[in-house]
């Protein structure tokens, strides 16, 4: 009997259905649950109140990241509310026996950086976390998505979630990108094309030569922002790079189990004739380094372009949205992007804080100085291990010599829940994933860019094509 061709998403889904309910929802088994301090306390409290225990304690891995300070860790956390949230995670993990990398552990870092780094994210897994950027982990050929607090508790207690299946979307990035065009530019260009709601209701598989050419870390940057395109999950098929990336990591299987796993992982790609409900084709060669100009990731243009003019927008609702965004951003229509100067630069976040990101930024910063008009340029590694690696490579020296600050790992100014934030009106070149109003601090203005572009903006004091520096 011929089997129906399946997409990667179909395969991952089907392999995890525990039971199907009459109304079309499925009880889906979750292989890995990552936990951080902000969305978990109530879930643990719920377990306690109901007298329940985690269903499979080894499936969980916890780390504090959102609230942790990026300086003076030896002095602890100054903000008492943040401190309590972090201490609560420590206590909950101790009480329930969950493995945690506490704040001063070298393995601590942003939850979406440490999962793959530790091999806790494996191909073929279902992986969830109480955080929307869980889509990152799909880069390894896993089904990974963000959940709310009730669902965090549900996973803790049952190792399952009640879910409705999404539709299949394929985003094909065809051909090769030009030099200087990074994973971040690809995903920003994709979002610019399909819009922030373009992926709503879909699980997106990213494919095509330009995606296959990316490193695993680059694929993580792409999948990270699938949620910014409205999709709960993003993923990339497993290939040799995936397997090479996973090999030897602390949680990765070894010996005979490794061979068995690799054999199974070879099937983690869409079958040739698999049906996608929507296919988007993108020409990689046409992508240039991207800079967002507005308050939504879809408000993005190439660095050599101008700030768009709402008067040229035919759709009146869209034009109104553009005007509001320009007003908030303090920008005039038709201003060349390269004329926009920045007050702060943030290199970090779960999108762009891995070692390759830091290498790319350091390559640009090397031998230069941060421009006088830039009040603060900070580099926040994604984990303690990324930081250590960067220091072994001398990247910290390059940054420090250029006038960047070199910080401790965490979410930091991506969402400004700790002390790192923009002041009202301040403009920031940021490698993070959200440019929403107030995201990096009340009244702060965020421009999303790649690490190389952020470093270039720091050096020049305004946006510029990093490859032209």
């Amino acid at each position: 009997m011929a089997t129906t061709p399946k997409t990667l998403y179909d395969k991952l889904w089907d392999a995890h259905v525990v039971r199907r309910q009459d109304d079309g929802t499925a009880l889906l088994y979750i292989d890995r649950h990552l936990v951080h301090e902000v969305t978990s306390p109530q879930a643990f409290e719920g377990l306690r109140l109901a007298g329940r225990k985690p269903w499979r304690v080894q499936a969980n891995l916890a780390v504090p990241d959102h609230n942790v300070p990026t300086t003076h860790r030896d002095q602890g956390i100054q903000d008492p509310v943040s401190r309590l949230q972090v201490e609560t995670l420590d206590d909950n993990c101790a009480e329930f026996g969950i493995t945690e990398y506490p704040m001063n552990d070298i393995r601590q870092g942003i939850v979406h950086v440490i999962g793959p780094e530790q091999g806790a994210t494996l191909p073929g897994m279902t992986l969830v976390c109480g955080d929307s950027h869980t889509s990152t982990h799909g880069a390894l050929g896993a089904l990974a998505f963000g959940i709310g607090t009730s669902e965090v508790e549900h996973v803790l207690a049952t190792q399952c979630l009640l879910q409705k299946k999404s539709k299949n979307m394929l985003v094909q990035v065809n051909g090769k990108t030009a030099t200087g065009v990074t994973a971040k530019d690809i995903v920003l260009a994709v979002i610019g094309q399909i819009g922030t709601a373009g992926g709503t209701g879909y699980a997106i598989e990213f494919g095509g030569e330009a995606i296959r050419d990316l490193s695993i870390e680059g694929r993580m940057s792409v999948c990270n922002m699938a949620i910014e395109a409205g999709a709960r999950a993003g993923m990339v098929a497993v290939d040799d790079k995936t397997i090479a990336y996973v090999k030897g990591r602390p949680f990765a299987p070894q010996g005979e189990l490794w061979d068995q796993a690799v054999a199974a992982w070879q099937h983690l790609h869409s079958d040739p004739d698999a049906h996608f409900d929507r296919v988007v084709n993108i020409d990689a060669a046409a992508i240039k380094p991207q800079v967002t100009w507005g308050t939504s990731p879809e408000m993005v243009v190439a660095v050599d372009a101008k700030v768009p003019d709402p008067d040229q927008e035919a759709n009146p609702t869209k034009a109104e949205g553009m005007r509001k965004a320009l007003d908030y951003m303090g920008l005039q229509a038709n201003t060349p992007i390269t004329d926009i100067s920045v007050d702060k630069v943030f290199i970090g976040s779960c999108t762009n804080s891995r070692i390759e990101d830091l290498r790319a930024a350091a390559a640009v910063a090397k031998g230069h100085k941060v421009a006088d008009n830039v009040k603060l340029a900070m580099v926040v590694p994604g984990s303690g291990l990324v930081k250590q690696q960067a220091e072994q490579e001398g990247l910290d020296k390059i940054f420090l010599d250029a006038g960047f600050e070199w910080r401790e790992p965490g979410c930091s100014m991506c969402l400004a829940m700790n002390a790192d934030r923009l002041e009202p009106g301040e403009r920031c070149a940021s490698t993070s994933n959200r440019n929403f109003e107030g995201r990096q601090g009340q009244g702060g203005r965020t421009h999303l860019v790649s690490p190389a572009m952020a470093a270039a903006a720091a050096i020049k004091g305004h946006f510029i094509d990093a490859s032209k520096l």
Partner: protein
Amino acid sequence: MEKFDTLTALVAPLDRSNVDTDAIIPKQFLKSIKRSGFGPNLFDAWRYLDHGEPGMDNRKRPLNPDFVLNQPRYQGARILLARENFGCGSSREHAPWALLDYGFRVIIAPSFADIFFNNCFKNGILPIVVPSSQMDELFRQTLAQEGYQLTVDLNAQTVTKPSGEVLSFEVDAFRKHCLLNGLDDIGLTLQHVDDIKAYEASRAKEAPWLFH
């Protein structure tokens, strides 16, 4: 989740429409680590005269004497009367958590915001929709009679007044079943423990590296 079958309790009237979740529990309290303990900050901006922040000793804060829940006659109320579109705004589960922690198990209103309505059932609160004309009557009677109590019977789907008059209400059969039996989503999933275990056993054979 705590079961709900019947409740006879004091009634408090909150005579405002479009009460949003930010009013129910202001955003500064979302940094909290608990699902419980939001009760003292329920309706914080209305209830106290100063600006509330997490970590304050709420017992020492100046109460707004004009706010209805601060009146002595409504202390211990477990049934809340409300107006149109109660619970609109964000999806924060902190809103039902705060109402529950304060002591409310039943909210009676002419209409509810959708997400909030769902969140109530997830957290053991029974939201009851009663037409506006009957709502007016309930508000009037509550205000007129100190110590006014109602008896809510979920199984019979009735609200009984002190006079003996009975109002009936609609509730989704599945939600009623969950609430009557104290089944939350987790409780329901745990009815399929055998399926989960069977899945794990077969998965452990196919993909043993996930279970080592």
